C-alpha cells in the first residue's frame, strides 16, 4: 500500500486515501488512530455526530424521564434523525446502538470484561460452535495496550483470568451496593471481584475521574466514561486522520475487473451523494450495520452481498439474551449512586458443566438500581406494566414500593454466551428505509433453548446469592427484550473461505482490500460484555495492517 509518510492527509474532498473506515465506534476509531499515526491517509465516515457532553441528561433533574425516550438505547424508540430504523417484528431481542463518534459506547455502562481463554476455543473444549483463529494469549498484548488507552480502573489479581498486567488506574469504590453483593457471594463461597470498568479513577488520557454520578447509560456528563471521541480521536486528528460526520454510507463500490473495492458512496448531511475513493476499505458498522452495508453493496459479481461467497454475511447474529435479578434489602444502600458500570462481577459459573442442561456459561455484574422512576420500573423501557388493576402499581402501593425499594435495591445482571445459529440473521427489509431512503435492516432472531436454559439456571443461582446477602424481596426479570447491546457474529472470521467471511486479520476472503474490524467478525460471543475484546481485536488487526503495509493488495 502506498501510504505517504507520517501525517498523510487526504487533501481534497473525496480524493483517494489509503484507508476509508466506515463507522467511528470503538473498532473504527482504534483503526483510525493507529493507521494515522503510522502515516496512512485515513478518512472515516460516521453517520452520527460528535457527542456533546452538555446534552447528556445525567446532571439534570429530568434524567430518568428522557432516558426513556430521547436517550433510550433502542434506536426504534429514540427515533432520532441520525438513527436508522430496524425491523424487529421477528426478533425476540431488540438491538441497541447509538450513532455517534464513539458509537454505542456513548451509552454503554463501561463494563470492561475481556473474553477469557476458553472463549477462543469453544469447539476444542466443548465440541460446539467454533474456535477463533487466534487465542487469548495472541490477543493479550493488544488488550493490555487498549487498557492503557481506555484508562481502565480495576484491581489486579482476578483469579478468573490468567496472570496479566495490572490496570492503569485503581479500582472504583464498590459502594454499599457492591459490598452487599459481595457478602452474599462470600457466604456461598462463590467467586467475585471488584468490577473493572472503562472509566478511570484518576485523570487519564483526556478523561476525568469517575464521579460516581451513575448515569453512564445516557452519556457521561463528567467526561469520565471512556469513549473514542475523548481517548482516540484527538490523537487521530493530530496525526492527520479526517472524519466526516453525518455521512451515511449506502454502498461500498467495487471494481469487478480488478476484484478490488474502490471506496464508499455516502449521503452527506445535506442529502447530497458523495464518493470517497480509497485503496482499502475497513467496515466497522457493528453486527447489524456491517452486514447491512455488505448486503447493500451487492453487485453482479456478488449478487448476494459484497464479499459473501460463503453466504454467511448477516448470519449467526448473537445478541446475549439478558436476565436480571433485583434484590431488596433492609439497609439503605444508596443504590442510585454510581458508577453504573458493574460494582462487582462474578465468573463462578462461566465455564461449561453439561449437568446444568446447557453449554457454556455467563458472567454476572452487580449494578445499582437507579432513581425513583427506575425503582418502579426496574429494567426495561416502560415504567409500569400495562394491564392489571390501577392500584397494583399506583396509589398507596406506589408509595410502599418506593419506600421499600428506592435506595435499598441492587441488581445482578446476567450476560450469557449466545451460541451462533445461521437462522439468527440480519437481512435487508424490502420496504423500511432510513431518512435518506437507504434500505433498513430486518432481524430474524430467536432465543435458543441453550440460552434460555442458561438464563434460568443463572437466575436461580442469583436468587440464592441475593438471599444469602440478606435480600428481603427479590424480583426476576427474565429475557428482557430491550437488551441487545452486543451485536456480534454476522461476518465471521475464520481460516476457511467456505465457512467464514474474513480471515483472522479481518480481511475478506473474497476481496483482498476489503476488511471488517468490528464484532461482526466474532466467531462466538463469549459470555461477557464485548467492548474490551472489540477494541483489542481491532488493535491487533490494525497493527497487522501496518506491519504488512508493503504487501497489502490495494485498489
Amino acid at each position: 500500500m502506498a501510504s505517504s509518510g507520517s501525517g498523510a492527509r487526504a487533501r481534497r474532498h473525496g480524493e483517494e486515501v489509503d484507508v476509508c473506515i466506515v463507522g467511528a465506534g470503538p473498532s473504527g476509531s482504534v483503526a483510525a488512530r493507529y493507521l494515522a499515526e503510522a502515516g496512512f491517509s485515513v478518512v472515516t465516515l460516521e453517520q452520527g455526530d460528535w457527542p456533546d457532553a452538555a446534552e447528556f441528561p445525567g446532571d439534570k433533574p429530568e434524567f430518568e424521564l428522557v432516558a426513556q425516550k430521547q436517550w433510550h438505547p433502542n434506536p426504534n424508540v429514540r427515533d432520532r434523525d441520525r438513527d436508522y430504523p430496524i425491523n424487529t417484528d421477528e426478533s425476540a431481542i431488540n438491538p441497541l446502538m447509538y450513532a455517534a463518534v464513539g458509537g454505542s459506547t456513548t451509552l454503554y455502562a463501561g463494563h470492561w470484561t475481556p473474553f477469557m481463554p476458553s472463549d477462543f476455543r469453544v469447539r476444542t473444549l466443548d465440541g460446539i460452535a467454533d474456535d477463533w483463529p487466534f487465542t487469548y494469549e495472541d490477543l493479550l498484548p493488544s488488550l493490555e495496550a487498549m487498557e492503557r488507552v481506555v484508562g481502565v480502573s480495576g484491581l489486579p489479581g482476578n483469579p478468573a483470568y490468567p496472570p496479566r498486567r495490572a490496570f492503569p488506574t485503581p479500582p472504583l469504590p464498590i459502594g454499599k451496593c457492591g459490598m452487599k453483593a459481595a457478602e452474599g457471594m462470600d457466604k456461598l463461597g462463590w467467586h467475585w471481584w471488584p468490577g473493572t470498568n472503562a472509566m478511570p479513577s484518576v485523570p487519564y488520557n483526556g478523561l476525568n475521574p469517575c464521579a460516581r454520578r451513575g448515569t453512564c447509560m445516557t452519556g457521561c456528563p463528567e467526561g469520565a466514561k471512556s469513549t473514542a471521541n475523548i481517548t482516540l480521536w484527538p490523537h487521530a486528528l493530530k496525526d492527520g486522520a479526517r472524519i466526516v460526520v453525518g455521512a451515511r454510507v449506502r454502498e461500498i463500490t467495487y471494481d469487478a475487473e480488478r476484484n478490488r473495492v474502490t471506496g464508499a458512496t455516502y449521503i452527506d448531511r445535506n442529502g447530497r451523494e458523495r464518493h470517497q475513493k480509497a485503496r482499502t476499505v475497513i467496515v466497522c458498522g457493528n453486527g447489524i450495520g456491517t452486514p447491512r452495508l455488505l448486503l447493500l453493496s451487492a453487485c453482479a459479481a456478488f449478487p448476494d452481498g459484497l464479499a459473501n461467497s460463503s453466504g454467511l454475511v448477516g448470519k449467526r447474529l448473537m445478541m446475549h439474551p439478558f436476565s436480571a435479578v433485583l434484590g431488596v434489602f433492609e439497609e439503605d444502600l444508596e443504590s442510585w449512586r454510581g458508577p453504573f458500570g458493574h460494582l462487582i462481577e462474578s465468573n463462578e459459573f462461566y465455564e461449561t458443566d453439561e449437568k446444568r442442561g446447557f453449554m457454556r456459561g455467563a458472567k454476572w455484574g452487580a449494578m445499582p438500581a437507579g432513581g425513583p422512576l427506575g425503582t418502579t420500573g426496574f429494567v426495561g423501557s416502560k415504567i409500569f406494566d400495562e394491564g392489571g388493576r390501577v392500584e397494583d402499581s399506583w396509589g398507596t402501593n406506589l408509595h410502599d414500593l418506593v419506600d421499600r425499594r428506592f435506595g435499598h435495591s441492587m441488581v445482578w445482571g446476567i450476560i450469557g454466551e449466545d451460541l451462533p445459529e445461521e437462522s439468527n440473521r440480519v437481512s435487508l427489509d424490502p420496504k423500511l428505509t432510513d431518512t435518506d431512503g437507504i434500505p433498513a435492516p430486518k432481524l430474524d432472531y430467536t432465543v435458543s433453548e441453550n440460552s434460555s436454559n442458561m438464563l434460568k439456571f443463572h437466575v436461580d443461582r442469583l436468587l440464592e446469592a441475593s438471599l444469602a446477602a440478606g435480600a428481603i424481596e427479590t424480583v426476576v426479570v427474565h429475557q428482557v427484550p430491550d437488551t441487545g447491546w452486543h451485536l456480534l457474529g454476522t461476518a465471521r472470521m475464520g481460516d476457511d473461505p467456505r465457512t467464514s467471511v474474513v480471515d483472522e486479520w479481518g480481511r475478506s476472503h473474497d476481496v483482498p482490500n476489503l476488511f471488517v474490524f468490528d464484532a461482526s467478525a466474532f466467531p462466538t460471543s463469549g459470555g461477557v460484555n464485548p467492548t474490551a475484546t472489540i477494541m483489542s481485536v481491532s488493535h491487533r488487526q490494525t497493527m497487522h495492517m501496518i506491519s504488512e503495509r508493503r504487501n497489502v493488495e490495494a485498489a
Partner: protein
Amino acid sequence: MTTVSNEERAVFAELADVLIPAAEGMPAASDVDVQGAMLDHILGLRPDLAEAFRRGLSAAAGKPPADAAEALNRDDAEALGAIGIVASAGYYMTPAVREVIGYPGQENRPADPDETPEYVANGMLQQVIDRGPIFVPTPEA
C-alpha cells in the same frame, strides 16, 4: 409546544391524585403542583407523550377520577401510561418529594482513589484469592 387548558389541568390533577395520593407521609401529586408549571416542563421534555396524555384527559373529563382511571386502564392503557409518566416524573422531580424520599439526585461525588478498599482491609477478597484460579486455560494446540 402543547398548550394545556385549565380544565385539562384540573382533570389531570384529580387523576394524578388517584395515582399518587397523600399517604405514608408523602404528599399527593396535586399538593406539589404537578398540574402547574411542572406539567408544561414535562410535556416540553417529552412531546411524544402529549397526544396520548390529552386523549386520556379528554376521556376522563366529567367522570369520577378513580372510575376514569380504571376505565382508561381497561380501554386505553397507553393514555393512562402517558398520564402516569407525566404525573410520576413530575412528582419525583419535585425537590420537596426528593427530600422526603432521601434522593439528592444523581450527584457528582468523587472518591479517593488511594483509599484502601474495605474488602481488602477486612480480608473478604483474600478468601476469593485463596480459593485459587477458576479459569479454563487455553488448551495445548
